[in-house]
């Protein structure tokens, strides 16, 4: 090609795109925006639809009456969800009390103590817990854990009956077993997020502590824990959200009796479990099915509040520390652990 031809080509104005080609871009953008809007519409529809279906139960018993009356009696058509709510809270709190210390300790062990070559195998092993479906946890719980823990629990109840909520006869399936299974189920996610938060502790802080002569534990206590406290709190609350919504594993090991147990080895019920168990028989009873949907709505709002709080705590921690782990990290950057465990 001659020099003049090249020059002419280089200086020529860029070709205008045809009308159709120009329309493609906005169309693409609006298509994707529409998809995003679809999510919002879906959730709004979701909420109002369920609220509408729950209305008969709420109007018959009153919203507060439905939530705080201690009487769930299907045969008399009385629906007060307090025993279920209490069961959900007891098992979830037990899960936190058992699961969070273990999860945090595991995270500390992996980030601060473990030899480098064991780090990733250990992480993978803990994340494997997240790959087990909840129905398998339930199966394992009812056939292995319940018989195995019966006698030790009875011994514990007899020996420590001066403690509050301990003592009396141990039921086969009970709150404690449900809480224990939930603790195992939330362990991977709480551990994964804690680990991520601990990884953001500046090396300077840790080295400064060590240089001042701190032992490893003193370094953890003065540098790692204060820095990651908020992140760990957020992680625990996300775990709480999981525990509250868990259904199938709990149905199988909580005993399914709609009363408030007096101690942690009593049978009980949870919001999610009652829905799973009773919806079949409720199909021909409008008030009953409305009550179950109302229970679902209470569950929905409860998890919503817990998750919003968790995110708020984590975002504030992020602002304070000014870097790295973000709200999105929690749901997105830990997919291996979180994704599978979000049951």
């Amino acid at each position, binding site marked *: 090609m001659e020099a003049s031809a090249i020059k002419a080509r280089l200086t020529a104005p860029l070709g205008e795109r045809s009308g159709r080609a120009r329309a493609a871009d906005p169309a*693409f953008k609006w298509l994707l925006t529409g*998809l995003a809007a*679809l999510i919002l519409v879906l959730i709004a529809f979701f909420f109002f639809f369920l609220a509408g279906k729950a209305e008969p139960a709420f109007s018959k018993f009153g919203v507060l009456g439905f939530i705080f009356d201690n009487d769930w009696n299907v045969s008399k058509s009385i629906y007060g969800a307090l025993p279920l709510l209490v069961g959900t809270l007891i098992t979830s709190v037990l899960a936190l009390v058992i699961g969070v210390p273990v999860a945090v300790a595991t995270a500390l062990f992996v980030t601060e103590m473990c030899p480098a070559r064991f780090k990733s195998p250990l992480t993978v092993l803990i994340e494997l817990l997240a790959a*087990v479906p909840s129905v398998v946890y*339930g199966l394992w719980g009812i056939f292995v854990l319940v018989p195995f823990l019966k006698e030790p629990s009875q011994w514990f109840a007899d020996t420590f009956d001066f403690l509050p909520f301990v003592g009396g006869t141990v039921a086969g399936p009970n709150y404690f077993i449900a809480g224990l299974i939930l603790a195992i189920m939330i362990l991977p996610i709480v551990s994964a997020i804690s680990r991520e938060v601990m990884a953001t502790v500046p090396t300077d802080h840790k080295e400064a502590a060590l240089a001042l*002569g701190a032992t490893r*534990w003193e370094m953890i206590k003065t540098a790692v824990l204060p820095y990651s406290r908020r992140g760990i709190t957020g992680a625990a609350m996300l775990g709480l959200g999981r525990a509250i*919504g868990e259904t199938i594993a709990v149905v199988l090991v909580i005993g399914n009796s709609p009363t408030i147990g007096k101690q942690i080895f009593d049978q009980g019920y949870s919001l999610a479990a009652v829905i799973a168990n009773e919806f079949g028989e409720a199909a021909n009873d409008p008030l009953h099915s409305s009550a179950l949907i109302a229970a679902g709505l209470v569950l*929905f709002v409860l*998890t919503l509040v817990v998750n919003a709080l968790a995110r708020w705590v984590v975002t504030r921690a992020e602002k304070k520390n000014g870097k790295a782990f973000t709200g999105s990290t929690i749901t997105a950057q830990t997919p291996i652990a979180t994704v599978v465990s979000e049951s």
Partner: protein
Amino acid sequence: MSTTAILPTISKRRRRADMLARGTLGFFTAIALVPLGLIIYYLLSKGLGAWSWDFFTTDPTGSFLGTQGGIKSAILGTLEMVALATIIAVPIGIGVAIYLVEFGQTSRFAAIVRYFVDVMTGVPSIVFGLFIYTTLVVAGTGGSSFAGWKGSLALALLMLPVITRSGEVVLQLVPQSLREAALALGTPRWVVTMKVVVRTAIPGLVTGSLLAVARAMGETAPLLFTVAVVNGTTFNLNERMNSLPIQIFQDVGQANDQLVERAWGAALTLVVLILILTLVARLISRRSQFS
């Protein structure tokens, strides 16, 4: 050298506290691994005994005594429903992720969408099931009450936020310079997005989607309300279908050792399927240059 003389030695008390704390951390870590070991042990010891050729090639008969059959319909049902859920959830989930990264970015609308995707991640799976039950099953949409495709929809709702959030992270990792280079060559925005950004991020997107699939596969609660259960194999997604989680859930409740054994065998099958998906997802993400 006198440096060692200047530093006071660590007192016995502090040393003991250190040892104790480290020991506790190690002990707790060991405790965390106990349930995993126990679950794997019981799955293998009880589940493998149930495995046989017939176990995988016959449908459950539904009879309490006599031959109870295998889990063929459950495996096929799970695969069919999860496949349909994937077909629904992956395009929408990735589409929303593309919107958030390429177009929405830091706009107010994008922030709201992001928030509600997070909200969806926290919604218990049973609530999704309840939602599909009240909207589609009770109303008998499509001329069926309980149906496979309704279960797929519930699973898709569950997968959607997971795919979007992981997709967003992966798309953000695509270097800005690639987009700018393509745009500078006069390429239309949508071509840049589809042919440059998405293509670069494909391994990560596949990983995120596979993990979402693995999660959906083990879900019981949403299927309970939307698909119910049936014994025979069916390829009609507008009918009731069997699935592994529901099959296990049903068998657990039976006071019959053989049915419980089938539950263990089915549980092992389900866990193996999920592990294979997780493993493939990890291998793909390891091979990709980002993430």
